[in-house]
């Protein structure tokens, strides 16, 4: 019998057997694939669809796919999208209402969710799911999110390298996956022996692991996996000091640096769409032409849009500075008051996918300059 914490060796060719087991159990298997020059999550039917031998090079405002010297399956970090797009879809039908003799009746659209298996979930992404669990839980729990989330099988991948825009170590969300997974894989590439350390994280995972009849992992593989993660942790591309973020952000609403950032920020909303924890949405009414039927949809929204805070004929946050301030202050500070944790997991997506390369790990330290001494000498500079 397999149990939580058990470790096995999964050879490179066993990965297709793992996929088979998932498909047999009725899971839709979702994993990173090469799509339009980026690694994007999508459905895979076979192991050949995984980005074998690819890696990503990330910087503020830059993302490039490159060839690796080996044929690693998971030799890269996170791409432009996140698992959020499955658990909290960008566009989702909530209900349909039809005119009746008695007025109208409403049919709920979100009673069941598909069974997803997420393959290749990183530590920061599991942390992001735990954050969204709190947003979409509680007395008004979102039934669509809950159904998809409880149904989803999480097959984590331990990061064998750190991206240039990663700072999960600072945010204490990675790189090591320690909880919230069913199975986890550490890719071991030493010599010609391409294999994975497979770790069981739940009963559901144990059942799948057992069906694969794998050899128990030798201590040297367990050690190699541990050392790999230590190297990743030591190679983080970015760092962020976090101990003072709550007071810093809440104490700096009038810092001149907000205006300076606003000169660069395009209010394009990319950062909020790419972020795996951003949860803002709007609803829209889609009526049928004859007026007898109407659908209500929910769509991702962003605090960077002017209409987001419309009140009467105007909006509350009209300036770009106030919108960037809202985003960062929420993410790093007021999120703590609302949900008991930071809203940032250090995945670096907002840095990589910002068209002008605005980097919160660079902006925050500037806020520290003169935050307390209400800058008497005018504009603060790093």
């Amino acid at each position: 019998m397999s149990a939580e914490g058990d470790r096995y060796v999964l050879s490179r060719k066993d990965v297709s057997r793992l996929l088979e087991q998932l498909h047999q159990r009725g899971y839709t298997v979702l994993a990173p694939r090469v799509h339009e020059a980026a690694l994007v999550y999508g459905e895979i039917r076979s192991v050949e669809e995984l980005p074998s031998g690819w890696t990503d090079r990330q910087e503020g405002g830059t993302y490039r796919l490159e060839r690796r010297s080996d044929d690693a399956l998971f030799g890269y970090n996170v791409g432009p999208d996140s698992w959020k797009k499955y658990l909290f879809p960008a566009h989702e039908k909530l209900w349909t209402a039809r005119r009746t003799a008695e007025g109208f009746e409403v049919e709920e659209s979100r009673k069941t969710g598909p069974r997803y298996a997420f393959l290749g979930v990183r530590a920061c992404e599991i942390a992001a799911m735990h954050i969204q669990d709190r947003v979409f839980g509680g007395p008004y729990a979102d039934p669509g999110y809950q159904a998809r989330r409880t149904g989803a099988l999480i097959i984590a991948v331990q990061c064998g390298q750190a991206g240039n825009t990663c700072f999960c170590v600072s945010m204490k969300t990675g790189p090591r996956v320690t909880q919230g997974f069913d199975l986890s894989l550490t890719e071991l590439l030493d010599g010609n022996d391409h294999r994975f350390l497979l770790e069981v994280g739940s009963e559901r995972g144990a059942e799948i692991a057992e069906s694969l009849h794998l050899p128990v992992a030798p201590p040297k593989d367990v050690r190699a996996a541990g050392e790999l993660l230590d190297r990743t942790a030591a190679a983080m591309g970015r760092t962020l000091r976090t101990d003072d973020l709550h007071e810093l952000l809440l104490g700096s609403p009038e810092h001149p640096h907000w205006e300076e950032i606003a000169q660069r920020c395009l209010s394009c909303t990319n950062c909020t769409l790419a972020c795996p924890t951003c949860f803002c949405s709007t609803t829209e009414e889609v009526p049928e032409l004859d007026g007898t039927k109407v659908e209500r949809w929910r769509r991702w929204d962003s605090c960077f849009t002017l209409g987001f805070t419309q009140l009467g004929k105007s909006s509350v946050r009209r300036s770009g500075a106030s919108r960037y301030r809202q985003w960062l202050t929420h993410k790093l500070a007021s999120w703590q008051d609302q949900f008991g944790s930071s809203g940032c997991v250090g995945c670096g997506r907002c840095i990589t996918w910002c068209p002008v390369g605005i980097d919160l790990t660079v902006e925050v330290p500037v806020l520290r300059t003169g935050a307390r001494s209400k800058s008497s000498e005018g504009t603060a500079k790093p």
Partner: protein
Amino acid sequence: MASEGASPVPASSGTGGPKDPYVPVPYRVVENSSETPDTVTLTLHPVGGTRVPSFLPGQFNMFYAFGIGEAAISMSGDPHVVGRLVHTVRAVGKVTTALTRLRPGDVAGIRGPYGHGWPLEVARGRDVVIVAGGLGLAPLRPLVYQILRNRDHFGRVEIVYGARTPSDLLYYGEIQEWRKRSDLRFQVTVDSADRSWYGDVGVVTSRLPDARFDPSRAIAFVCGPEIMMKFTAQALEARGLSDEAIWLSMERNMKCAFAQCGHCQFGPHFICRDGPVLPYTRIRRLMALREV
């Protein structure tokens, strides 16, 4: 986040119906009475015998016009009258215009109640000052009913209501009745009026210096445009009221009404869930900032 305000009633407790919190419950309009040229008060009954959830003064519903959309609308009726809902709506845009045009027999949707209302328990034994600006009287009317029903639980009750012009005054007949009462002082003021108006002219804050209450034991409930609430809070503080005794009902854009859409955030507060009624002491710093 804990609030000291009156606690919310979960939406599901009353309707016992749908589990998806976004799904509205059909209600039939039984009356549409005109208050002002752009504002009506609607009375609604649930279609098909669903129980109307009880609510606390200051709470609101999401009110849905079929095929058009939803708007946050406060309860404006008497919380003790069961089996019906009363809402006062001003036509300012797409949804509210459709809602004001509902006729008796028409069916609309309701989900709620949401948010924290006026903390009436805290007001027991104290003087009560109610300050309303414009449509701000609507969410305060259920509170007035509640206070009048238990009048001996409170000290002096002083109400100041300001509107732009005499024709913008809500609940006209009812206010005339309240003004006749000896256990309540109800002052009405308008920003501007022609000669046919024989009442006060001036902003609501101009009525506060001589409002009768004991600042050491009074509590104030304020609803109106944000700028009016800010000046009112300052005027009440000038009268010696502490900021902990001043409660404001905030307004922000809202889509879900249960702290998931993100729109109504005001600093750490979700106005829909932690408010709309909040103590001034918790938001005064935010209110002093621009574009929060």
